[in-house]
């Protein structure tokens, strides 16, 4: 694939000073540099897929074993919050895509605006997530640290949820297994949130650099690659949402 692109570069080796400032010395052309870092980003995302793959595997096994516990656990989550978070994240994905477009077409002001919106939505997501976690903490749903089976062996003790779903009481052994649900919930959303935090930090850095005009002078690799990362984090959430929030909502 790249043979064709690089055939001419033996000759060009001596002419490095003609390259744009953002081209690194060991690449023979900007295209090669872009190709390489873009491909590298995709490979990194492959790694991320497998990273979450281990969690999804664990989730699927536990869910099959302890389905009633997973239903009860899921009913404790607010579907409104979950949907809002999903929407927030999808919109942030859109603004990120727009940021990439702005960078590609050289619109500096719009780029800063899109990046800032993405950052804002990312922070909103994290706040909502934090709010939700706080709720779990208050309700004694944090396995290992602050956990009680009360809401599951006696669903009426949680009138809000009970009013909506009329959950049948779980036997104590199954109620203990809600701990497995919440363990996976915290690990999965935690790992996702960790990715979000990394993303938000990089976004802040990018906004600063975008203000200096770094991405609107033809060098869009970084924005493009970060976009891939951000969309990937979005995709993870797209799967987490139905898996964690939408288990048997009809009952």
């Amino acid at each position, binding site marked *: *694939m*790249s043979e*064709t*692109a690089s055939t001419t570069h033996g000759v060009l080796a001596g002419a490095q000073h003609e390259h744009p400032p953002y081209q690194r010395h060991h690449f023979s*052309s*900007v*295209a090669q540099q*872009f*190709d390489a870092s*873009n*491909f590298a980003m*995709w*490979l990194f*995302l*492959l790694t991320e*897929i*497998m990273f979450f*793959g*281990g969690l*999804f*595997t664990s989730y*699927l*096994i536990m869910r*099959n074993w302890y389905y009633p516990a997973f239903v009860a656990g899921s009913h404790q989550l607010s*579907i409104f919050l979950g*949907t809002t978070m*999903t*929407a927030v994240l*999808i*919109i942030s*994905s*859109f603004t*990120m*895509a*727009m940021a990439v*477009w702005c960078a*590609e*077409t050289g619109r500096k002001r719009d780029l800063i605006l899109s990046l800032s919106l993405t950052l804002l939505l990312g922070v909103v997501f994290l706040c909502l997530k934090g709010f939700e976690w706080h709720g779990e903490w208050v309700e004694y749903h944090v396995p290992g640290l602050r956990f009680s089976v009360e809401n599951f062996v006696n669903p009426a003790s949680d009138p809000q949820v009970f009013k909506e779903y009329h959950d049948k009481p779980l036997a104590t052994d199954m109620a203990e297994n809600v701990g497995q649900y919440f363990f996976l919930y915290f690990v999965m959303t935690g790992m996702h949130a960790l990715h979000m935090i990394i993303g938000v930090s990089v976004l802040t850095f990018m906004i600063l650099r975008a203000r200096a005009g770094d991405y609107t002078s033809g060098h*869009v690799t970084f924005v*493009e690659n970060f*976009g*891939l990362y951000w*969309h*990937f984090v*979005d*995709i993870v959430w*797209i*799967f987490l*949402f*139905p*898996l964690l929030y*939408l*288990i*048997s*909502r*009809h*009952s």
Partner: protein
Amino acid sequence: MELQSPRSDETHGEHIHVVSPKVYLAILVILLIFTATTVAVSYVDLGVFNAVVALAIACIKMMLVVLFFMHIKYSTKLTKLTVVSGVFIFFTLISLTLADYISRAWGRW
């Protein structure tokens, strides 16, 4: 809504394919609609198909994000192959592990 320019094969990414904001906007709307759908469907009792439908919708959403937001539709074969191989190994991990769990119940040797 249509692509702005046809893919230029000879450049191999030298020229990034610029996707129109209109496409992005359309995708955003579809994604939001799917999100609403998946929530709505979860309130309907479909038995085991609840999970199937939820995952199917998630997969469609993923496809949309990957194809358009992540520009896979306009990428080189190499990138496409990369994505496919990642998904393939992901399913290998899940399916071969689950196959062990499921087939344990088949017989007790």
